[in-house]
């Protein structure tokens, strides 16, 4: 088991409540994934005083090792100057920097510490991951205060690989593309080998990471999100409910046998998807929401 959550806000008045709507959803799926959890926050970062979003990239950093982030910060300043902002996010950090500086910044990381991993990049997305009960993670890092237009979360009960920060979902293989998965893939080692021959690198031996990177690969070849998702269904064997988000879209898809659950609630104010209805039960106006289960092998996509 695992729990997946996706929440796309349509009524911008609700954006200030994103975190407080999200935390009960995650907590309701604690039983499905008490090992570890991960969350992605999508927000606009063009507000007054902040760097314009078009030229800036946000880089979420994390590690399985105990990391001295101040040391990492100083190392990065030495390597590429101080033209980036640096904010604690979860157990890691989110740096925001001009796109032009991104390559230099990323290349500097391994020399500072080989244990640092990039959890996410994007203009909108920030990612945090941690082991332990999901509600503890939410409380420790003040998730209830999150503001933004979309969030994705995953509560993990590991079956295919170890319980560590880096094995936790979501996986963000390319800018602002985020994947969470309930289920298991069986041919992921084969697919991973094929991707590695194409020069794609992996941060973990997690089966879901393979699906995420396969999806990113298809998108890079020119597929749209739905086509890329269909390629996942075609090439990857296993059971899955996948929630896939981009800067502007949220998709959900289930395997041919619908082995893993999913429920969607749709209102004029939001679209929410979760593994179980009880995660949706506290959402505003849930009584008048259109609540339905996604059909197997059908790709459902909602836009901002």
């Amino acid at each position: 088991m695992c729990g997946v959550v996706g929440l796309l806000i349509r009524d911008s008045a609700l954006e200030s409540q994103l975190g407080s709507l999200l935390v009960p959803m995650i907590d309701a799926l604690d039983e499905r994934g008490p090992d570890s959890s991960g969350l992605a926050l999508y927000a606009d970062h063009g507000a007054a005083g902040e760097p314009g979003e078009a030229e800036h990239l946000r880089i979420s950093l994390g590690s399985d090792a105990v990391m001295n982030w101040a040391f990492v910060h100083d190392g990065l300043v030495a390597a590429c100057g101080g033209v980036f902002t640096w904010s604690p996010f979860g157990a890691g950090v989110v740096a925001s920097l001009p796109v032009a500086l991104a390559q230099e910044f990323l290349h500097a990381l391994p020399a500072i510490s080989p244990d640092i991993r990039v959890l996410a990049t994007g203009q909108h997305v920030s990612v945090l991951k941690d082991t332990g009960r999901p509600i503890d993670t939410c409380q420790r890092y003040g998730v209830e205060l999150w503001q933004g237009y979309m969030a994705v979360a995953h509560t993990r009960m590991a079956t295919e690989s170890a319980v560590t920060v880096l094995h936790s979902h979501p996986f963000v293989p390319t800018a602002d593309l985020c994947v969470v998965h309930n289920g298991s893939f069986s041919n992921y080692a084969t697919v991973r080998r094929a991707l590695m021959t194409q020069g794609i690198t992996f941060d973990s031996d997690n089966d879901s990471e393979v699906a995420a990177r396969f999806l990113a690969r298809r998108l890079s070849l020119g597929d749209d999100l739905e086509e890329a998702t269909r390629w996942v269904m075609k090439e990857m064997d296993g059971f899955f409910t996948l929630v896939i988000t981009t800067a502007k879209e949220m998709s959900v898809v289930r395997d041919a046998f619908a082995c893993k659950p999913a429920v969607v609630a749709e209102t004029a104010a939001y679209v929410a998807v979760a593994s179980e209805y009880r995660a949706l039960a506290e959402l505003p106006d849930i009584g008048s929401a259109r609540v339905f289960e996604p059909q197997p092998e059908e790709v459902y996509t909602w836009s901002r």
Partner: protein
Amino acid sequence: MEPLNCDELGTRGVNQQLRALLPGESARVVQPRGRHNLAVGLTAPTTITIDGNAGYFVGGLGGSKDGSGPDIEVNGFVGWSVGENLMGGSIRVHGSASQSAGSSARGGRIIVEGDASLRAGISLKGGTLAIAGDAGAMSGFMAQSGVVLIGGNAGHGLGDSLYEAVIYVAGAIASLGADAVVQELTDDDLLVVKQLVHDCGFDHIDPSQVTKVASARQLYHFSTHNHGAY
């Protein structure tokens, strides 16, 4: 009796109070909010109303082998496996049911007034599952005994690997599963469907027009043609 509030009592607290009901007594459960395992394992003939949406396994493992048991009504929709392993009594859902409705039910009756999702009636072992609306793919999978009535359309792979359960469909069948065949409706079938339609209040079903699906019995009997494979 005061309504049993799930928010205050929790699942176990609610179920303990339901279990303490004497035959003939009734109870109302409120604020279920999709909670799993409500009203499970109850044997006494009581009347239970759940006001709201229930989660997985509602009413499961209920009733006795003589077919008696609680009559449970859900004013909302239900999650996976409503009435799983039911022995007796009844469960009526005034909404739709998620996957595996009535799975492995040995007796009793599960009535779904909306649609049922995939694998409705999977491994049915003698119970009755009546669905007013549509049933999802792979419904009736490996059902051994009992009756499934589908008032709407049936999804792909209906009755795959059926044993001796019988499925009646009022609407269209997307496709039959392996070893499932359409058979002619007999007078006995008509009696069963008529009674069930009447009991459930499914006025939209014309019993004489349902399609009967049963096992071709090619799959579960050993065939000497296959001797070499063993």
